[in-house]
């Protein structure tokens, strides 16, 4: 990858590149965070789907009993955090690819970022409330 014609012609030093000071001033952070959250979501999603299968037909009390169990509460919160983080990173790329107006792009990026944090916080608080208040 280093020896493509573009990079041979680039004025940017290789040190500048590896320090993450590319055109976006971000380096590989976004890419890496997307992969790390994806890897975390593999087991968490499988656990979640398996849990939903087991919970099919459960009523309010049965669901509370399940979600209030220590391990289930912890995994639910981890799932919510990894999922909303991954969703934010993915939606960001989609917006950056397709929205070309700077104003709309910035507005939608803020909307997605604040929205995912809001919903993640609500979901975490919901799990805590179920878990701690019974």
């Amino acid at each position, binding site marked *: 990858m280093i020896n493509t*014609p*573009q990079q041979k012609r680039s004025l940017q030093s290789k040190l500048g590149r590896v320090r993450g000071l590319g055109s976006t001033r971000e380096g590989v952070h976004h890419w890496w965070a997307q*992969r790390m959250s*994806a*890897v975390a*979501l*593999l087991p968490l*999603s*499988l656990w979640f*789907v*398996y849990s*939903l*299968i*087991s919970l*099919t037909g459960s009523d*309010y009390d049965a*669901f*509370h009993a399940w*979600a209030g169990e220590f391990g289930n509460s912890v995994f*639910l919160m981890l799932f*919510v955090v990894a*999922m*909303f983080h991954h*969703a934010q990173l*993915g*939606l960001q790329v*989609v917006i950056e690819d397709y929205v070309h107006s700077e104003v709309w792009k910035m507005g939608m990026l803020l909307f997605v970022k604040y929205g*995912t944090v809001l*919903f*993640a916080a*609500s*979901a975490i*608080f*919901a*799990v805590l*409330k*179920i878990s701690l208040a019974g």
Partner: protein
Amino acid sequence: MPDDTRPLSPHLQVYRPQITSILSVTHRATGVVLAFAALLLAYWLASAAYGPEAFGRAQGVLESWFGRLILFGFTFSLFYHMCNGIRHLGWDMLWGFDMAKLRITGMIVVIASLSLTVLSWLMAYGHVGKL
């Protein structure tokens, strides 16, 4: 043209659809769909924290035919995005880039995600024994 050595992006309008491009677009589309699924999960958890009436309302919506259709779509989106995501992680480790492997892994992703979706729903409604 500033630089004729730069690769051209494949223009969707003039490219014949291929398994690679279709699966790639589907990966992105299912990702966006799953963002809505995440919102629904947050609403569902919040309703359970709010009380029996709110949870009952949420369950009423989810257990309607329309709710189940949406959940079925979410299930497929999740399994597709997960299976194709594993394919992506393989590419990140420089595995599976040649056309033969791309086609085979692509077919595996489609078959696996459809099978896992149907299997999950059969298990949920007791037609197949639970694990």
